[in-house]
């Protein structure tokens, strides 16, 4: 097991290098010269040349990439072209906000999908199963930008329960922070729950047809124990795989919900960086989110062994 963990971890390195190269080369295509973005329109040619030299833009691209990558692995992403702020500081401020909304969304997804998925799987083809599956279809087809607007129409404009936009940090005011997180997290979480419900139901249907379930029932175990301790436990592997995919959806979806609800997280930072041609900031945001995905995929792979001790890693 430890050997597998080390080997699986080492596999992240080449993918991370490829990801970093793709991020660097892709974002170099961003229209506009970063030196011009820094100095404004019609800069003096000597000053422009100086800034280009300072930023290293006069050197070959592969040299620029290796220098950038060397700085990145030491935690130095450079400075924002627009604000002059170190990119790492901006990421440190924004990442916890996205994490808070993402984790709340994941929690909402699980709270909704676990009971519904297990029940639907256990009562396959019943009326309630059909209703649950139709609702899952409907929720899966609702785009987050439309769902977010619908939630604002319901909770902010009609019921006046929640503010339509804005974010409060939990260190400032915990209650206001929870209130400001609900709608963005619900927007992301509902979409995610649709996929999870279908996966959990499908896993439960597969597991409940196995012989060991008949044995468990024959032993006189309660239906609740059979469903949760036997069927669900064994059906968790595909669910965890989907959960890993959901993290990517949450990180990507953050771009939309943070834009709708004016939340100062990674998604909104990415949009600002791209619109303002802030190359170091854009590179930092994309690389950190991609690295987060790699870590999540790693954790998902490792978790299989804990969920099912029969799995042998070679």
């Amino acid at each position, binding site marked *: 097991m430890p050997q597998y963990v080390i080997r699986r971890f080492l596999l992240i390195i080449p*993918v991370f290098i490829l990801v970093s190269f793709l991020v660097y080369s892709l974002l170099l295509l961003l229209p506009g010269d970063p030196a011009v973005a820094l100095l404004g329109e019609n800069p003096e040619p000597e000053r422009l040349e100086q800034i280009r030299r300072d930023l290293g833009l006069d050197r070959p691209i592969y040299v620029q990439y290796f220098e950038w990558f060397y700085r990145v692995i030491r935690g130095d992403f450079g400075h924002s072209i627009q604000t002059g702020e170190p990119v790492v500081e901006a990421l440190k401020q924004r990442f916890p906000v996205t994490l808070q909304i993402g984790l709340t969304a994941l929690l909402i997804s699980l709270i909704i999908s676990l009971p519904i998925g297990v029940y639907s799987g256990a009562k396959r083809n019943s009326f309630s199963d059909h209703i649950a599956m139709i609702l899952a*279809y409907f929720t899966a087809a609702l*785009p987050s930008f*439309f769902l977010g607007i619908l939630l604002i129409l319901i909770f902010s404009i009609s019921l006046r329960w929640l503010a339509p936009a804005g974010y409060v940090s939990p260190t400032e005011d915990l209650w206001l922070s929870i209130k400001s997180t609900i709608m963005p997290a619900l927007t992301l979480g509902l979409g995610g729950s649709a*996929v999870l419900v*279908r996966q959990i139901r499908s896993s439960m249907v597969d597991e409940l047809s196995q012989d060991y379930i008949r044995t468990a029932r024959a032993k006189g175990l309660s239906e609740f124990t059979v469903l949760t301790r036997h069927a669900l436990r064994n059906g968790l592997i595909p669910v965890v795989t989907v959960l890993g995919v959901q993290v990517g*959806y949450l990180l*990507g979806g953050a771009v939309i919900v943070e834009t*709708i609800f004016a939340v100062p997280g990674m998604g909104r930072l990415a949009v600002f960086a791209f619109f303002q041609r802030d190359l170091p900031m854009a590179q930092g945001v994309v690389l950190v989110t*991609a690295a987060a995905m790699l870590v999540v995929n790693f954790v998902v792979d490792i978790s299989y062994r804990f969920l099912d001790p029969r799995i042998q890693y070679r």
Partner: protein
Amino acid sequence: MREFLVGLWPLIKSVGQNRLALFGAAVVFLVAVVAIFAPFIATHDPLAQDPYNKLQPPSIEHLMGTDDLGRDVFSRVVYGSRTTVAVAITSVALATVVGIPLGLVAGYSGRWINAGIMRVMDTLLAFPTLILALAIASSLGPGFKSSVIAISVLGLPIFARLVCASTLSVKETEYVLAAKSIGCSGFRIVAIHIFPNVTSPIIVQGTLFIGYAILLEAALSFIGLGIPPPSPTWGQMLRASYPYLQDQPWLPLAPGIPVFLVVLAINFLGDGLRDALDPKLKSVRHVV
């Protein structure tokens, strides 16, 4: 042609027996008709501004009201379907045209070529989808071409991996071994013997990806990186309605409901096709 249509009949019959898939097919057909005949269905010029009649509620004159520039929302929704359909179909076509050969080569070739192609595909999958789409669309500048390329790049690894996995399984079958033993070239084996046998999952995934492409196009337009104004797109209309939610709540519903309905219909149709073509395939989608 006759043989092709006769071959399609069991598929059409199976989809026809699935009520949800039938509903999906009907909605998709309706959207295609609306997109093709938009000039005949729209009641107004979608770009014509009327400052004296801005933000009007739905009425006989303006079926879905007017927007902040006095433009007819119904006509913009009708014309918006053209953009949506065009971007979605072009993206899926591009993703399959590049992804299928890559998957076939990766699956049929040796270990190293397979590993090389698949690691690049893994790299593309390592990005959160919308972040990668954002990076590509902003690098190329907003527009039809950049939206199509951004969405295709996201679809590329999905099709390449799917085709690679199917090819790995088909290439071990006896008829492929027989073709090899009589001296068929690698190209002939892949094109004539393997490719026709991996098309079912491609049809299913391609249909489902059209729904995903519609969501992505709308998301890019919503952020401001899709097709630039004044051409109407559903995502852009949703974004433009945002400041008027308080007093004109119908504005976001007009483009939002069509996006929802089309994606729902495509998901129904895709799942119906999956059940008809390959019941063992289980799709797990995630939306934007």
